[in-house]
């Protein structure tokens, strides 16, 4: 199964990857080749088989409603590319276009 360029562009947008033209073309070829191998999975008979998201026989895990010590703000901001007044600094989310 081969993937077209539009699909690559769509998935790159979903994945938030600003890929170059060259990368897009290479990925189109490589993903098509990989999917060709992966498509063998369609041959598996999975009628009446439940999906396993996880192999453990566990359901929800609850933690007690208790306060616990947390990190100091400075510790968590120490790795931030940009910060201001104890906050992460980001670009405007809503532009005034």
């Amino acid at each position, binding site marked *: 199964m081969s993937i077209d360029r539009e699909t690559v562009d769509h998935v790159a947008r979903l994945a938030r990857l600003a890929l170059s033209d060259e990368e897009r073309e290479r*990925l189109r070829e490589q993903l098509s080749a990989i999917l060709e191998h992966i498509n063998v999975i369609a041959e598996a008979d999975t009628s009446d088989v439940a999906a396993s998201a996880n192999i453990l026989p566990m359901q929800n895990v609850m933690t007690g409603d208790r306060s616990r010590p947390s990190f100091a703000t400075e510790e968590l901001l120490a790795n931030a590319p940009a910060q201001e007044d104890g906050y992460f600094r980001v670009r405007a989310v809503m532009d005034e276009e």
Partner: protein
Amino acid sequence: MAELWRLTISEASELLQRREISAVELTRAHLDRIEQVEGNVRAFVTVTEAEAIRQAEQVDQLRSEGVELGPLAGIPLAIKDVISTKGVRTTCSSRILEHYTPPYDATVMKRLREARAIMLGKTNMDEFAMGSSTENSAFFPTRNPWDLERVPGGSSGGSAAAVAAGEAMGSLGSDTGGSVRQPGALTNTVALKPTYGRVSRFGLVAFASSLDQIGPFARSARDAALLMQAIAGYDPLDSTSINAPVPNYTEALTGDVKGLRIGVPSEYFVEGTEPGVRAAVEQAIETLKSLGAEVGECSLPHTRYGVAAYYIIAPAECSANLARYDGVKYGFSSKHVSGSLIDYMSETRAEGFGPEVKRRIMLGAYALSSGYYDAYYLKAEKVRTLIKRDFDAAFDRFDALISPTSPSVAFKIGEKVADPYAMYLNDVFTIPANLAGICGLSMPGGFSDGLPVGVQLLGPSLGEPMLLRIADAFQQATDHHKQMAATPTKKKGRAR
């Protein structure tokens, strides 16, 4: 005492407890060894020399005060750079985390610190643990101590190479589809992937959350048991942690395999495996038979779907897990873009991730995208159930299964980089254990043209004591694991 770096953990531990050597001497010997061979091997991204010596001094101080310490106290170890270490940068061998320093320790690190093990540094890996050769490191490839032209396997190639070259007595890696066992096989080390949930993943930088598991490398089964003892156990900080008592792993090493039933899955002995690998594994089976094990054939009929299911599930989970790298909270941020927040994030990710990581994110995002979810992701999750059932049936009849760890010995650097799928096939025998959540171990099984061959043992959920027992008994009858690479020395250049 000459060449302390050749000792096993068990040997060194006795000498330390008898105070015939000091932790500082032992640590210094390994730092010197790193200095000697690291120019060739390049197993480490970061060496934490000063801190290692400081930790060793503390161990010696405590022992001189008569404080009783455990078997890992003063033992120098290397840690894969995907495991968070408080105050020591944790890069995942990625540009995007090149300057990231975690504010906390992973649970396994906390446990190793409590055991007073010494951390020598952080080891190189395929970027975000995606790869089978350590060539996908954004920094440099690690070389196989057995042949510097060849890869050490991956993704935990640095942790495997460090142990094989005598730069560390043991190490930790992470195994999502074989990333501990396959490099173990390629470097003649013992490498254990525990049952999913047996070792806490808290502080392990996530790749594929339903498959990832931390495991040890060592130069004997006994040493692997000692490392497992320290890191295994329930952790409330990991919601997938198994709340079951941790057995005594060294007590399980009875040296006896008489009457144990070992299955040989026919689907793991097919064309495509190198003759030298196959011969070594068949020899290992004969050895176990001669020790009294009962060997029989079995079938894991859905094996042929394993790689496909894995390369849907792992990339899907990776595309979700790696969404957190947005250039806002931590990590690399692009300087070359003007525009919206989305443009900025997309540019940051494009510049920060390497080609294999982008490939997997794209593959995963595709498999999860509208219109493909049922055909790929949901189908793969069903196949996972079938693979799990295959193993359940096999373990009704057998205590453990045996196979090659990898279809080939270490391959040449650059040999497989052009064909992503050929690289993916390195993990054909290791992937099913991750999908089924069971445990697996690779042990040195001999050599093919001078290169190590790994023998894989697979066990049921929480079957680690059985795997360690078989490996230990095998090692009492063979000396493959005692062979160490004659790594040529070359001092390292300027530290990164």
